[in-house]
């Protein structure tokens, strides 16, 4: 598991919830959608910090 901060995406509905956009990591897109991730807090208006399973 690694920890990273990502931009938020989504409009906040159940169909399109607010969630991390794994294509916007500071070091570039992850290139994959993690099969498992969890928020670790520190959420801002535009970003989420999450612990995610690497490939």
């Amino acid at each position, binding site marked *: 598991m690694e920890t990273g901060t990502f931009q938020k995406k*989504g409009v*906040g*509905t*159940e169909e399109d*919830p*607010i*969630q991390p956009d794994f294509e916007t990591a500071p070091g570039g897109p992850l290139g994959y959608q993690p*099969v*498992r*991730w*969890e*928020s*670790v*807090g*520190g*959420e801002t208006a535009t970003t989420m910090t*999450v612990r995610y399973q690497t490939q």
Partner: protein
Amino acid sequence: MSYAPATFHAGTGEDFFRKEGILVDGMAPLISARYTFPTPDSNSGTAITVTNSVGKAGAVQAVSWTAFDLPSAKSKILAVTYMQPSTTGYIGWGIHDSTTAALVATIKDSYQGIHHPGGNNMHFGSYNASGGFTLLGTDTTFFQENSADQPVMGLGLFADGTDLKMFVKSGTGQWFQILTASAATLTSFHQVYFRQNGLNARFICPMFVWGS
């Protein structure tokens, strides 16, 4: 015959949750439905019909919840029950904060843990005061299908301030923690609710809620 506490508590998961340090001294049973399903206090969407140990949703597909009021607001909640999705797209638990009125048409100020066979995952998240929904964790490595032949699944949701955890038990397997996250700051809970979208989903005893 010897006394076997692990076996005694197998149906509720109480032994597991105590061993894991989730269910601790000071948390009192708020809803204890070992054999008889409790009567819901309110609902929206497709209603569930209670028959003995089961609350079964109707066939109509609709975004739905069924709420149970707690005797007083609590800051720490563990809610555990069993469920079978049938063909429903999602099924799960919610814990509603008391800073807003009781649930009405839309869900606000709550944590929610969902078994989501329709989305091939299990996930949890939070609704803010405006009803906006934020995912706080997703696991696509464990879920069951949304079909009538799937085993009954246990689902537990724990909230203690910013600490949110979800637990699962499949069929005769063991309870285990599937997700944990640092969540929003909901701290005063006065309702728990079932979440489903109709399609004959079942909620099944035992149903237990502890809190402090």
